[in-house]
């Protein structure tokens, strides 16, 4: 294969937009969580458990975790694209990051619904 600089993958807009939308979702969730924690004082194990027994809290937290996962994937891939030049190493690292993020997301689901 000749060593030429190639561009023109024709993607990027969706990831850029997703990173902004997921940021908004995470910000809204953070505010909701802070309000819930401030209103529910004093927070003990029982209050915490009751909070996460409710369906809406579980779904909202899952939405937060999914947003974080997508946001982090775009961001970490950007860093890898900036600094890791060899294609093989880059692809391996990207796969590793993707698998790790998917693992964390599955773990979050397990924690929320066990």
């Amino acid at each position, binding site marked *: 294969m000749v060593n030429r*600089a190639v*561009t*023109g*993958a*024709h*993607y*990027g*807009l*969706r*990831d*850029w*937009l997703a990173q902004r939308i997921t940021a908004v979702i995470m910000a809204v969730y953070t505010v909701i969580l802070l309000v819930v924690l401030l209103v529910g004082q004093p927070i003990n194990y029982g209050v915490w458990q009751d909070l996460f027994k409710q369906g809406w809290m579980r779904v909202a937290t899952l939405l937060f975790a999914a947003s974080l996962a997508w946001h982090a994937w775009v961001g970490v891939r*950007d860093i890898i*694209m*900036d*600094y890791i030049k060899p294609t093989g190493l880059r692809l391996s690292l990207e796969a590793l990051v993707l698998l790790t993020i998917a693992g964390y997301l599955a773990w979050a689901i397990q924690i929320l619904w066990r």
Partner: protein
Amino acid sequence: MRFSIYRYDPDKDSAPRMQDYEVALEPTDRMLLDALTRIKSVDDSVSYRRSCREGICGSDAMNINGKNGLACITKLADLPEHVTLRPLPGLPVIRDLIVDMTQFFKQYHSIKPYLINDEPAPERERLQSPEDRDELNGLYECILCACCSTSCPSFWWNPDKFVGPAGLLQAYRFIADTRDQATSERLDNLEDPYRLFRCHTIMNCVDVCPKNLNPTRAIGKIKDMMVKRAV
């Protein structure tokens, strides 16, 4: 005033060095370029580009005390007693303060910096409404001095793939032009993780532009148009 100037001749020197010059300025010396002219009269081996000496040609862009700017419109009165001059960062040095701009202009050419309109030219000129013309303000004034692109880390890491702030500002100049008919092709050409989306909005370009232009805003408008096209 004391000047430390980056000296490097790749044909002779094994490594770059900094050379100090003590300059007695005359009252008529107003701009940094005037001081460089004095230095050149003492040591004619100091090399830099210059032409119009009034901020129009964009030749004498250099790194002045760590910040890119044009020597001809940088006031000596605004500089401290000790000034360090280096070539624009990130581009290969040809000699002293002169850099090889090939990569920069390659990116500029890649955005097709000319009006594309296949309709036969009218008798006199292609007209625009005053409002449409206003959109080009802050875009057409770019003099391609490369201060912005060479202050951008994304351009340092990927000069062969990332168009850079100067090229993207010019790209938006033609995307925004109502007389241009290639808007969609221009957006297609830029929709790429490297060509456009290496911009992480750190705004170094806005900070250094000697013409006070805002490439970050132009890049944002390109993204807005892509969103408008996609959703």
